[in-house]
């Protein structure tokens, strides 16, 4: 009886240690043998990674996970989403709990060099700015000396705002909240004079106010917040796959390839289209993937513009402008490395 118990427990323990993914071994092989990609996302961030009432994940960050899954496994839905808090995200990545992180993570020097991780590109160029109530009568961030700030805890905004106020010789009090929804409630109750966060989040928080017209977003952008997917150090092949999956979405927009016309472009498009979609050349094979890797991304997830509009742009409740995130052809800085 007792021996049997022990046996049962050991089997269970063995099965539950999640396939014992090795950190050093090729992540690509692990993902292929598992049949799913495990992707670290935010526990809930409007427009970037959110769950709907049916439990389905969507968002700009989620689309990066989906595009990697489409490229590697040919199925954008073969993703296991692991909601992670800001604090545990790097540990989870480094320990191998997730294959990649796509969790509105700011690409900073310190993180890139001291945490054992690599940033695989930028899928959203953001910057911290301020939102105030209209009746405060403030039109510039420089008038905010002595004011209270509502900030979400554990974000790089916390450091950016301290720098900004010190630089201008002003003082402030930071009221930090755990989640963005609480930050909004704090702002709305008048606990602080202004709310500071990444521009994309300010838009989402403003939509959530009981009367969005009462609040304005100030023109100053006080920091650079390039957000992008992250992989762990030491697996260059996997690093390349994530980097080029993101590039494929951006490149597809540049070339005008969309999920609607992708079949047509593969058959009748120009050489660049064909090279991207696997009709010609060795791009897939060089990554260790099928030749139709990018075709799958565009077909199942769409190009960057489609993803943007659907999740945070004009087709979503957030209604963000493209701004910096427009393709370089339209005056933005979203730019894919050369796909050849």
């Amino acid at each position, binding site marked *: 009886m007792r021996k049997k118990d022990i046996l049962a427990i050991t089997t269970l323990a063995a099965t539950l240690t999640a396939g014992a993914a090795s950190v*050093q071994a090729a992540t690509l092989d692990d993902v292929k043998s598992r049949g799913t990609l495990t992707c670290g996302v935010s526990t809930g961030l409007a427009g970037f990674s959110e769950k709907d009432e049916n439990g389905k994940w969507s968002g700009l960050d989620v689309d990066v996970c989906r595009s990697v899954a489409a490229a590697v496994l040919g199925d954008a839905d073969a993703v296991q989403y692991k909601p992670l808090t*800001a604090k545990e995200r790097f540990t989870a990545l*480094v320990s191998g709990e997730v294959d990649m992180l796509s969790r509105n993570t700011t690409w900073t020097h310190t993180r890139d060099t001291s*945490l054992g991780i690599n940033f695989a590109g930028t899928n959203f160029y953001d910057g911290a700015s301020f939102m105030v109530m209209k009746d405060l009568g403030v039109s510039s961030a420089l008038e905010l000396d*002595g*004011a*209270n700030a509502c900030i979400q805890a*554990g974000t790089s905004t916390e450091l950016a705002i301290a720098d900004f106020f010190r630089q201008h010789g002003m003082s402030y009090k930071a009221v930090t909240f755990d989640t963005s929804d609480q930050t909004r409630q*704090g702002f709305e109750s*008048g606990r602080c004079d202004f709310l500071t966060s990444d521009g994309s989040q300010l838009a989402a928080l403003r939509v959530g106010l009981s009367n969005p017209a009462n609040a304005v977003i100030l023109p100053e952008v006080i920091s650079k917040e390039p957000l992008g997917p992250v992989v762990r150090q030491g697996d260059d092949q996997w690093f390349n796959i994530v980097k080029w999956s993101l590039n494929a979405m951006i490149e597809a927009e540049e070339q005008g390839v969309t999920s609607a016309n992708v079949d047509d472009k593969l058959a009748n498009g120009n050489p660049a289209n064909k090279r991207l979609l696997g009709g010609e050349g060795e791009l897939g094979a060089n990554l260790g993937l099928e030749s139709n890797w990018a075709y799958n991304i565009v077909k199942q997830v769409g190009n960057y513009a489609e993803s943007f509009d659907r999740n945070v742009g004009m087709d979503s409740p957030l209604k963000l402008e493209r701004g910096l995130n427009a393709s370089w052809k339209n005056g933005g800085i979203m730019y894919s490395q050369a796909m050849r």
Partner: protein
Amino acid sequence: MFKQKTIEQTKSAARKSGGNGSAAFYNNPNIRALFYQILLVLGLGYFFYSVISNVLANMEATGIKTGFSFLTASAGYDVLMSLIPFEATDTYGRIFIVGFLNTLLVSGIGIFFATLLGFVFGVAYFSHNWLVRKAATVYVETFRNIPLLLQVFFWYFAVLSTLPGARQSLSLGEAIFLNVRGLYLPKMVGSDLFWVAEVALGVAIAGIFVLRRWAKKRQELTGQPFPVLYASIAMVIGLPLLALIVTGMPFTVEYPALKGFNYFGGITVIPELMALAIALSVYTGSFIAEAVRAGVQSIPHGQTEAARSLGLKEKKIMSLIIVPQAMRVIVPLLNSEYQSLVKNSTLAAAIGYPDLFNVFVGTALNQTGQAIETIFMTIVVYFVVNMVISFLMNRFNNAVALVSR
């Protein structure tokens, strides 16, 4: 007959086993004990060895920084409330101290009010007034059965955030202001001779102990009780006041005033502190009320009857006969309630009160990525604080136990 036989058998069996036992060394309890303990030492040693070597290997492989050098690095972010001067350029080490003091502050306030609420409602269980009795039951059964996290949210987001904004503050005589950003109180700022009053306060507090001892002796000798409580209050207020008058009021009062966006000057009690302190007091108070109820119920009814027959008044029966005896049951429970209050104060993270856990395991861990060092330091602090509470309460417990016998 049958019985006889069994006893005989048992005896012989005992003799037999005794003979064998002395021969086989493994039946010697001392050797067995030694064996088990060596086994445990080896097991634990192996466990710690493998954990530590795994940690080192993992850190090496992933390139995570180690060591406590981050404590002297500049933090670069601000803390909402600090009992000691603090700027964003100060070090993580200083943040640690700031957080620690904030934890002590909220725990201290929480323990004080939780005890007060607990004893008031615990005694209210035995009130003759139906409404009061029911109020005690409703209070205990409501707040004891809701997760503390929800209560913290409730006080912060549903109650305190409905206060008026900074420019519409409620005020009391233009000296005390209350708004959604906190409670603003005037502050005494002492000048050169202010230390005399501080010394007087110290003397008054020391005097209370002397007074108590004297009053007890007097009561034992003469049977005359002395109003220790009133005398103590008079001393604590009177002596410093006297000192102030003698030295010619060497202080100025700093009133809070609205400048720009906020009130400045005076003492600010931030709403995060209020919400957390209220939630902790109300939650722990409900458990203490239960403890007090259990303590009072453990006293046999005969004690009350005996006291009545001696002609003691109802109030005196409670304070002189019942509660002192009940303390023997109550104090150990209080001990564990105080400890859980300190531990629960970590929920500050949910509403952004800058306690140790929030500023250190929260922000500092996030900025430095050094999980093991930050969590280890924090755990040690909570552990030590709880040990101190345990030590003090055990001392107190011994005191009440001695009195009762």
